[in-house]
């Protein structure tokens, strides 16, 4: 059993008891022909929390979002929001705001008309459109066709669209893509205030951990469609424990030997490895027994970034 598999079974994993979960995914699977995009995935997001949905590109995050909002049909299992299937929501625009990569804009429609269209469909008062345009700082571009927007402007319009109905739950798929550093900082603060000041639930995905690490209360980490771990950030990090950094010209040989002992090994660069799941003393003895050269052998607590990289490291390095 690898370190990662041990972790999955060790991390506390149960739906909140006080309030129904805002997001509930149970044994969810989605296959496209021979490709399995989501593989027996289960996790819960409690109401009023801000949770990060992390995984490398192609891990299955976008597919999971599409399954959550009924844009795709599961091959197996179930995906529920606010206690029911998305299709069974009574007033979806006021209950769930979704900003998905699969959502687009008509290039000839202006930003204001895009939001007006959503407002008309959802029965939302028109003044809310201008409020949202001001919130995402698109007032000056409101009457320009979206076809001429930068990716950052499109992202902000997507956020305005998701927020239009002042929904209880926000599902945001890679919202920081295309935003400049200032925009990312604004997004972090804004989403935190939505969750902590207004009691909304925010489920936000990213393949770049640094974008969400500072703002989320808990994380769901997936890779190749499977759950790697779920829990509060501190819990996930503490379960990974401490890591050992090795710098050696024999890094390849080290990686093989450590993987044989079920350690989780991440290659940081050419001669540097980060190892979790083995004591520093054990690693030292391995080096001595196999006469491997060491330039550095150092123990430290793992950051969430290192934990994320370790958890989603490629199989061949484990």
């Amino acid at each position, binding site marked *: 059993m690898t370190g990662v598999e041990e972790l999955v079974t060790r991390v506390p994993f149960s739906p909140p008891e006080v309030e129904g979960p805002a997001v509930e995914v149970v044994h969810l699977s989605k296959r496209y022909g021979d490709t399995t995009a989501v593989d027996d995935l289960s996790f819960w997001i409690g109401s009023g929390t801000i949770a990060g949905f992390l995984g490398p590109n192609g891990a299955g995050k976008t597919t999971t979002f599409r399954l959550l909002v009924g*844009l795709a049909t599961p091959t197996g299992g179930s995906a529920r929001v606010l206690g029911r299937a998305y299709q069974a929501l009574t007033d*979806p625009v006021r209950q769930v705001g979704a900003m998905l990569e*699969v*959502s687009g804009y008509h290039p*000839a429609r202006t930003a204001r008309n895009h939001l007006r269209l959503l407002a008309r469909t959802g029965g939302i008062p028109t003044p809310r459109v201008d409020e949202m345009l001001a919130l995402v700082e698109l007032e000056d571009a409101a009457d320009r066709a979206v076809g001429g927007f930068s990716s950052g402007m499109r992202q902000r319009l997507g956020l305005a669209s998701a927020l239009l109905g002042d929904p209880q739950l926000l599902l945001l798929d890679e919202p920081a893509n295309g935003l400049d550093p200032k925009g990312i900082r604004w997004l972090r603060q804004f989403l935190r205030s939505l969750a902590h000041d207004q009691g909304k639930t925010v489920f936000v995905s990213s393949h770049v951990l640094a974008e969400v690490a500072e703002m989320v209360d808990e994380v769901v980490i997936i890779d190749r469609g499977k759950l790697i771990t779920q829990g509060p950030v501190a819990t996930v990090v503490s379960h990974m424990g401490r890591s050992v950094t090795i710098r050696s010209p024999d890094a390849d040989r080290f990686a093989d030997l450590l993987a044989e002992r079920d350690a989780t090994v991440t290659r940081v660069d050419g001669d540097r490895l980060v190892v979790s799941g083995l004591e520093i003393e054990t690693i030292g003895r391995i080096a001595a027994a196999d006469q491997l050269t060491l330039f550095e052998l150092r123990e430290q607590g793992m950051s969430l970034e290192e934990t994320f990289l370790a958890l989603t490291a490629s199989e061949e390095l484990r």
Partner: protein
Amino acid sequence: MIRLIDAELFKLRTTRMYLRLLGAAAVLVVVVTALHFVLASDASLTIEGAPEAVTTQAELRSVLDVSSVAVLFTLILGATAIAGEDRHHTIATTFLLTPARWKVVAAKVVGYAIAGAVFGIVVEAAAVGVAVGWLAAIGTPIPFGGTVVAGLALVPVATGLAAAFGVGVSAVIPNQLGAVLAAFGWVMIVEQLVSGLLPDAAQWLPFTGAGSAITGAHPQLGTAAGLGLFLTYLLAVVSLGMQVTRRRDIA
């Protein structure tokens, strides 16, 4: 449902497709109508098939019948209804706002039928404008009456129904080029081939059969029966479209 229909009409108002098709159809009808009067007024034309001068209601109706070309344009307009949203990936937002997808298809059918009828009225107005203007200019009395009005009333019905039919095709084939080619190919190739090879069967087809009955040109069916036949075809294609739309994944 009224809110959804309103949203569909708003979509058409805030993009260029509708106005472009309307402009193209209006220009075509104006040119053909004007050409008729130009050729009819040229006394040097003695060739067979040259247009007659317009002096009776039946002749004026015949001239104004060129407006029915708008049916092809509204059919294509309808064929872009869902396929166009797929092309621009706006269909995901549409289904997020209205998860009951059959309601989206139904709203598009009604919305495009309304937009198609308005399309027909505008194109007719262009043809009538040219005809009335020409006849007034040459001092010919305008033979206006019940026959002409009856003919004019049928065009918006036909263009509205064609747009609705196009929506159904678009729901069955959610690919813009595929839906447009299928709709256009059906009317211009399949139905024409059937008409040539199996004339008896052709009178029961949606456009050459039911469509001609609506405009009073069917050998057996009247307008009401033609309308019923076309609505049957419309119901079938829309029902199939709803089934396809309900089941498919949005990528």
